[in-house]
């Protein structure tokens, strides 16, 4: 793997989604992986500093909003020596298509990683049709 591929950058959200925020905090866009499986779609988001209590997932119409609040821990009586990442909240918005069964969405957080399982609606699940040989 070339060295360039190891580079990462925590990106700040370009504009606050859905109006102004009450907390004057930096807001970052969490990086995500989206995987489509046979019966569902999985969204995995890196949200270091977030746990199950501080993450918030809402669905309004077809809009899925992921947000997470992070309490920055700044060590006292010390001087910053290296600063490679900023600390702040997370927010990202996705538009879902009708193929997702919104009632059955499940989410979990582990080690600062959010995993959302979006099950596909029954009618749209890909079905395998067995082909029989004619007798």
């Amino acid at each position, binding site marked *: 793997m070339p060295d360039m591929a190891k580079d990462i*950058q925590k990106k700040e959200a370009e504009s606050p989604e859905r109006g102004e925020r009450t907390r004057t905090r930096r807001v970052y866009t969490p*990086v995500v*992986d*989206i995987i*489509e499986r046979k019966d569902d779609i*999985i969204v995995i988001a*890196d949200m270091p500093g977030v746990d199950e209590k501080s993450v918030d997932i809402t669905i309004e119409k077809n809009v899925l909003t992921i947000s997470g609040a992070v309490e920055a821990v700044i060590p006292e009586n010390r*001087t910053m020596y290296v600063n*490679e990442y900023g600390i702040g909240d997370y927010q990202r918005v996705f538009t879902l298509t009708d193929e997702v069964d919104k009632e059955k969405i499940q989410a979990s957080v582990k080690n600062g990683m959010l995993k959302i399982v979006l099950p596909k609606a029954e009618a749209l699940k890909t079905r395998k049709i067995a082909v029989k040989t004619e007798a």
Partner: protein
Amino acid sequence: MLWSDFERFGRIFDPWREFERMSRAVARGTSPSAVEFPAVNIWVSGNDAIVTAEIPGVAPNSIDISVIGNSLTLRGSRQPEALKEGEAYHRRERWQGEFTKTVDLPFAIDANKVEASFSRGVLQITLPRAEADKPKKIAVKSA
């Protein structure tokens, strides 16, 4: 970057320090550029250094931390989801693979006293400065 041992004299209000603190706050406003995974922040005082790293999605015991002299090395890996037949990535933004990252601290570390904790995907390591590396106070005797 400069830091001084004056900090050990305590929390007396010092306008110059206050100014420094503010200018650092402004400097933080400029977003850090792309860095090697995982991104780290380091704070130092005269007696120790605190290193934090964002490594979400890995098991705490899978991170290998080693210290030699004044450098700290973090090793580990973050593996992609195993895909079965018919499964596909729509987006793949998260960094994956094996990482080795070494950072240099401004002083030698007492490797036996290093402590690390991992919570919510954030690794925090406290690295005390080696006694031998600490500045010595020399008493001035009157003749």
